[in-house]
């Protein structure tokens, strides 16, 4: 035995004597993970989170989260001798007088934008492929929690520098707090330690931003990943892939090298963006004061939809019995987002109620094979996109020479009209794609070769597709509509009542499918040709 081997086995033995890790590792180092590009989206989110922890820690070494007033005397001349908060001054210090400080700030901000984008993309992947179905509902709920907290964490993060733009964002958050019926004024005064802006808000959100929320993130991400590990990853349908197996590469060495390498790639790309693409140049905005503002005030992209909803809200307030309720704030700022996120969290349970499907699913859906769900996703995305467009209405207006009023009315009407249209169109596209699949399986693929038959007719030669492809296109389950007990024609009242009727109606719409082609049909057609 060589010296190297002796030392290695010595160390391994020492650790195993105390932990018994060998047995667990032996089993798990060869754990199989399926491979698909779309499985990288969640990975990007995870790696961005690690980048956020690293770059964020760097920033804390210089950042002073205090609203104490100081006079700036750093190397950025345009703000020399200007009175500002210590948090703004220390952000300037990091940007101009710490070598690599600006780079780290940019990396941190870029990583936050990428983190949120990756979470949203991952969420969409999980939604459209049905990866949230039994047994993965818990992980869906954790994911909804993570995206919600991500929005809050991002908002708190870009609020910390206390520049004119971020201070305006805090002012808006304060107005939302203040608008909450009965307790609003109290909540605002407790959060801000008195009247807005006060001197305690930045230090307080700093603690939440660097300690409380990252701690919750770490815990939730850990559970999220442990569940993925324990339940084994879902896989796309295909030859040899079943509900009972998982086909892919072992953790060691392939997956470790690929995933580990991918972390460095994500970090590298983020560093590149941080180096060359400057975002949030806080030194141009100046320190926050409530009496000033910069034109084109924009939140980060993941807040844009919320701001867009607030912007398009109708100007309604109720004044009654000496009290005021601001629907123009509550509706777009709290009620609508609350309904959207609750609906998102409950979706797996709603879908299983509609389909009556209580089985485990480890094979992913091709989105076209579940037209209703795909259409619902497209509808929600459209809703968000229209809100987002209105969140940037001032920028769009100046860039494309449109009027803000025009964009506002377009989105106000569009928000109600366009999503249902998107639903219908998407559903039709899905059914058409199913029809195309059916055509492809039964008649083969077009070869582009034209043949003239003896009697003069021209036909295009179709080539049968492979058995693998035929299986992939036909393997999916096609749910049937649920029947509600108690038929109407007997005059017997439906025991399931209105709820049952609604369920049956949705279930029927949900079951609208183009029948998947079968081998029997294929053989019949083949027989006909010969």
């Amino acid at each position, binding site marked *: 035995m060589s010296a190297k081997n002796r030392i290695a086995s010595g160390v391994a033995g020492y650790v195993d004597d105390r932990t018994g890790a060998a047995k667990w590792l032996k089993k798990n180092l060869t754990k199989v993970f399926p491979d698909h590009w779309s499985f990288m989206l969640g990975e990007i989110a995870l790696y961005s989170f690690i980048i956020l922890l690293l770059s964020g820690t760097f920033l804390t070494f210089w950042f002073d989260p205090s609203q104490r007033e100081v006079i700036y005397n750093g190397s950025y001349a345009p703000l020399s001798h200007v009175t500002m908060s210590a948090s703004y001054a220390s952000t300037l210090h990091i940007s101009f007088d710490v*070598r690599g400080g600006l780079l780290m700030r940019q990396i941190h901000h870029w990583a936050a934008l990428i983190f949120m984008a990756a979470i949203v993309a991952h969420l969409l992947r999980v939604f459209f492929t049905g990866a949230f179905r039994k047994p993965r509902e818990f992980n869906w709920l954790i994911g909804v929690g993570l995206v919600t907290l991500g929005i809050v964490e991002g908002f708190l993060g870009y609020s910390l520098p206390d520049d004119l733009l971020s201070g305006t964002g805090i*002012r808006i958050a304060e*107005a939302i707090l203040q608008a909450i019926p009965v307790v609003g004024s109290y909540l605002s005064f407790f959060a801000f330690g008195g009247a807005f802006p*006060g001197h305690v808000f930045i230090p307080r959100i700093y603690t939440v931003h660097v300690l409380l929320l990252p701690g919750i993130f770490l815990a939730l991400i850990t559970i999220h990943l442990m569940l993925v590990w324990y339940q084994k990853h879902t896989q796309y349908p295909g030859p040899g892939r079943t509900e009972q197996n998982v086909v892919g590469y072992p953790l060691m060495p392939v997956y470790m090298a690929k995933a580990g390498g991918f972390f460095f790639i994500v970090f590298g790309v983020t560093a590149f963006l941080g180096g*060359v693409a400057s975002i949030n140049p806080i030194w141009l905005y100046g320190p926050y004061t409530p009496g000033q503002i910069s*034109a084109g005030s924009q939140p980060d992209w993941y807040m844009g939809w919320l701001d867009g909803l607030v912007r398009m809200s109708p100007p309604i307030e109720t004044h009654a019995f000496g009290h005021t309720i601001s629907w123009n704030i509550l509706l777009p700022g709290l009620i609508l987002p609350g309904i959207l996120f609750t609906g998102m969290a409950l979706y797996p349970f709603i879908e299983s109620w509609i389909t009556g499907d209580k089985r485990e699913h480890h094979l992913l859906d091709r989105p076209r094979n579940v037209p209703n769900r795909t259409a619902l996703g497209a509808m929600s995305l459209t809703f968000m996109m229209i809100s987002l467009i209105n969140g940037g209405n001032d920028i769009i207006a100046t860039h494309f020479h449109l009027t803000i009023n025009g964009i506002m009315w377009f989105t106000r009407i569009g928000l109600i009209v366009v999503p249902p249209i998107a639903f219908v169109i998407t559903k039709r596209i899905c059914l058409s794609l199913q029809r195309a699949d059916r055509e492809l399986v039964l008649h083969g693929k077009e070869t582009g070769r034209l043949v003239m038959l003896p009697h003069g007719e021209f036909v295009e030669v179709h080539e049968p597709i492979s058995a693998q492809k035929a299986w992939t296109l036909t393997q999916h389950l096609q749910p049937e509509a649920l029947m509600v007990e108690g038929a109407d024609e007997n005059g017997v009242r439906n025991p399931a009542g209105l709820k049952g009727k609604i369920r049956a109606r949705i279930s029927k719409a949900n079951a609208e499918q183009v029948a998947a082609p079968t081998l029997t049909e294929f053989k019949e057609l083949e027989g006909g040709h010969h």
Partner: protein
Amino acid sequence: MSNELQKFTDPGLPAHVHRKADSDPKAAKAAEKQVAILFLLSAIGTVMLIGSYIFVKSNKFIYLPILGDTNLQQLLLGVGMAMSLFFIGMGAVHWAKTLMSDTEVIAQRHEMRSEPEDRTDFVETVKEQAALANLGRRTLIKRSLGLSLGLIGLSPLILLRDLGPLPKNQLATTDWAKGTRLLTDPGDRPIKPSDLEVGSVAQVLPALPTGTERTLENIGKDAVLLIRLRPEDFQLSPERLSWTHEGIIAFSKICSHMGCAVALYEQQTKHLLCPCHQSTFDVTRAAKVIFGPAARPLPQLAITVDAEGYLVAQQPFTEPVGPSFWERSS
């Protein structure tokens, strides 16, 4: 159809196709070299990072197309760091893709649920443990425990009380009072009607009692915008007209929607626009909301001049300024 339609059958995993590097030692050697080059590029990136940290002056700016004026050190640090990280990643992935085994492995899944006997055993165990603890019989313990656990949730609420003072009437009041002088911001000078030309705008703050320092909290509710129009431009009630002075009208600058500074004045249309949510107010009609989500006009401050000819407030604001809140009565 009575006879069952036969479905397509799963042909099983396709035969594995080997890569060139699996059989050809030359291709494998080439792949090894490619991986090594990628790792070397990473090392070059790190050297670049160290070099730019030490040798490039931190205040040196260069002009680059698209990027504009760029701090050279930050740029090189970023590009160096990006290279050092990116190429380690590319090297590892390339290694995995070309040289590590690419044979797909099949593992079996098992249903998540436990075996039925494990479930029953679990329920039995819980029941036994509960019986050992006498939970079923000792209702006094159960109820008192429930009470104390319920009450314990109150303590954080109590302990968080000192986060801030009670609002009292702070949201409803400002520092404007009868006779308060309008001071320019910035500048802190009293202002005369002749200082404002027709069509111009100025931000003013109230003169505070001597010895009081102006805080951001004061500015957050006191900021006022002065706009001078020709007196015939106004379409105001006689009362509101009497609140103006020689065509000068004063509004709270804090948006009645969400409290942003309403800072954009369009001279042609005489509209005030809030850059946050685009609420638009018509100055000639007492800041009536003509567009956007704001539900109330900006509060108007009644102004006049004092004996020395300086602009002063006739009276405090007659309604709270800024965004709405529960206790607000109108």
